[in-house]
């Protein structure tokens, strides 16, 4: 063999993995992938095989990703399950960081005001009726929630809303909406509660201690006991 192969196929117990080398040019890679897949063609089988594609330290644009998927799909019974790369753009990295960040704010959200954060929100203050807080992740309110809170507003169904005083006019998590009962229950104590989407796709409000079992991912603490 005159040089290392740019395309290697490995079979694992979960299916096939295509390793694409990251040092050659993209056009070279496409050409070799085309040849490789054509020669190992087993036309007899009609069972679909899913493959995972590893591209190493190569950055693929979404157009290139589509091209590769298309190329592999054309070759008989292969279906691309995922394409994984070791590299992402700075924009994606910044977005990821933002979405994993907890943004804290010490203010009152008054009627007509809207506060939106990409990640988790830690609000030290109240949300008054008519005010809205939105977060891509979870919402933690260290005051009274009397307005609207929308957690996981970009589609995260695992997001939760936690408040010291839970009297929202409306609760939204991802695309689920829940509103306060029309009759005010004055006697009810609504302190230290959380809201989450339960297994019936309904927003449920419960004591916040249940979260450690339901959403263990909220814990970010590493180590300790």
């Amino acid at each position, binding site marked *: 063999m005159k040089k290392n192969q740019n395309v290697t196929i490995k079979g694992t117990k979960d299916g096939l993995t295509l390793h694409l080398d990251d040092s050659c040019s993209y056009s070279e890679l496409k050409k070799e992938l085309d040849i490789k897949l054509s020669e190992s063609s087993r036309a007899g089988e009609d069972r679909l095989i899913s493959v995972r594609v590893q591209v190493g330290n190569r950055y693929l644009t979404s157009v290139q990703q589509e091209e590769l998927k298309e190329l592999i799909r054309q070759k008989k019974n292969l279906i691309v399950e995922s394409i994984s790369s070791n590299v992402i753009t700075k924009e994606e990295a910044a977005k990821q960081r933002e979405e994993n960040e907890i943004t804290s704010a010490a203010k*009152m959200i*008054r*009627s*007509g*005001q809207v506060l939106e954060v990409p990640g988790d929100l830690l609000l030290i203050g*109240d949300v*008054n*009726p*008519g*005010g809205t807080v939105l977060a891509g992740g979870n919402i933690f309110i260290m005051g009274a929630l009397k307005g609207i809170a929308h957690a996981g507003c970009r589609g995260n169904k695992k997001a939760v809303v936690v408040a010291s005083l839970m009297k929202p006019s409306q609760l939204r998590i991802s695309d689920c909406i829940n509103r306060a009962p029309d009759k005010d229950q004055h006697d009810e104590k609504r302190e230290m509660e959380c809201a989450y989407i339960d297994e019936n796709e309904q927003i449920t409000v419960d004591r916040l201690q249940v979260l450690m079992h339901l959403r263990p991912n909220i814990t970010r603490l590493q180590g300790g006991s």
Partner: protein
Amino acid sequence: MGEAIVITSGKGGVGKTTTSANVGTALALHGKRVCLVDTDIGLRNLDVVMGLENRIIYDLVDVVEGRCKIHQALVKDKRFDDLLYLLPAAQTSDKSAVKPDQMKKLVDELKQDYDYIVIDCPAGIEQGYKNAVAGADQALVVTTPEVSAVRDADRIIGLLEKEENVEAPKLIINRIRSHMMKNGDMLDVDEITAHLSIDLIGIVADDDEVIKASNHGEPIALNPNSKASVAYRNIARRILGESVPLQPLEEENKSVFSKIKKFFGVK
């Protein structure tokens, strides 16, 4: 250099104009030079409440558009010797006749000559509100113990907190009916203050005398025997920096028997 205080509420009909008239009058009673400015262009009535309607020659829009000098438009209140003046709003134009920067210039000019400029703000959060707030250094938010008024007060406080030249707004709770508060049929003072989380500068009881006095064009603050009058005078004293305890809300039980019981410490 004086201070400009804007009196605002968001909602209409909670008593901004009455409060402006009475706080202004009470400050003048303390010997301060006060100028009341009505910014409710097109729907003025501070002049009516003050009883100065038929002395108006020029108005705020005339001043802004240069048709007269400021001192020509100011209406002097004869009950006070050179202490209380009113700059009336125009009745023939609307809110868009004045711009915030013109208003600010006007108020800055008045601040040279007066200790306090009391600005009566129109209801709403549009142009009229923006004009009224433009020149202000302090803000008093008026609300009544009703959910709708408190909601609008919350909105206006949010807007006021964004204004850089205005200090943290203070709250006046107007038209308190002590028996309804006691029964829990009305929001109580602590509830409202906690909800809005701003400093309370005064509470004013609902008093028929206030309406009577307004209709006669005499601010209630001039009548020392009314409860509301004392409340407005207390607000003025707090603006001047005195610390005055809040008025008790419950009516004093005036029967002789209860006084005797109180004397002996029986409840």
